[in-house]
């Protein structure tokens, strides 16, 4: 066995030990509870926007009439974040949920400025739908892409 061969074997052995001894890339396993909770929140948000688009010029379109939605979404986000933080190697999902949480804060601020027009509802729903799609895509990739 010459020096080159020893080097090659050593390199292969090092890679082998690295692959078997520890995970080089760590990402949390699929969480079905998170999947269901995110899907449920998506449905609540879709209902809110459907309701908002109908009532843009009616008295019930203002922020005070939708307080329950904002409170429920805040509670749902808090529960999702606690669960996501409790799981190891879940930093990407935690970051996604933190950003989504701030989106709900922005939405509430926007609603406090006045009722949403149909054009605004369409624009806002585009943002939220894209956010939910991306969060669910990552969660499902943990299950199906492995």
């Amino acid at each position, binding site marked *: *066995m010459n020096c080159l*061969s020893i080097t*090659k*074997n050593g*390199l*292969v052995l090092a*890679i*082998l030990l690295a*692959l*078997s001894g520890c*995970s*080089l*890339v*760590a*990402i949390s396993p699929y969480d079905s509870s998170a999947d269901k909770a995110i899907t449920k929140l998506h449905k609540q948000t879709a209902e809110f926007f459907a309701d908002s688009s109908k009532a843009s010029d009616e008295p019930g379109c203002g922020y005070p009439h939708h307080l329950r939605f904002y409170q429920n979404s805040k509670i749902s986000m808090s529960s999702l974040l606690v669960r996501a933080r409790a799981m190891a190697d879940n930093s*990407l*999902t935690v*970051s*996604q949920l933190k*950003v*989504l949480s*701030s*989106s709900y804060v*922005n*939405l509430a*601020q*926007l609603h406090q*400025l*006045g009722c949403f*027009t149909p*054009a*605004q509802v369409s*624009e*806002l729903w*585009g*943002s*939220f739908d*894209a*956010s939910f799609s*991306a*969060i669910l*895509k*990552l969660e499902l*990739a*943990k299950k199906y*892409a*492995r």
Partner: protein
Amino acid sequence: MNEIKDDLGSLLLSKLLVQASSDGLSSNHKAPADTLRLAEELDAINTMVIAGELSEEQAVLHRELRLNALKIRLLSIEGDDDIALERTLDGMGKVIRRFYGV
């Protein structure tokens, strides 16, 4: 026999390195398309401001929401890449372990 094993081992390693450094494991090419879409969305918000449908204060919040959606999308792409790399490394690990009988 040992020489054949060495050569095959080296080949496996070089394949792993090529895979890890190639675009096959990366979804980075998706990011420019998302950035372009964001530019169009921000442009649509500006059009709404010019048309008087949105105040500047409202437009700031709309833009922030669009940026948040992009951030979430980019995090998803990063996660997809990590999962793809994890899958490749696991596969290579299995092949190498079987090859060396470990």
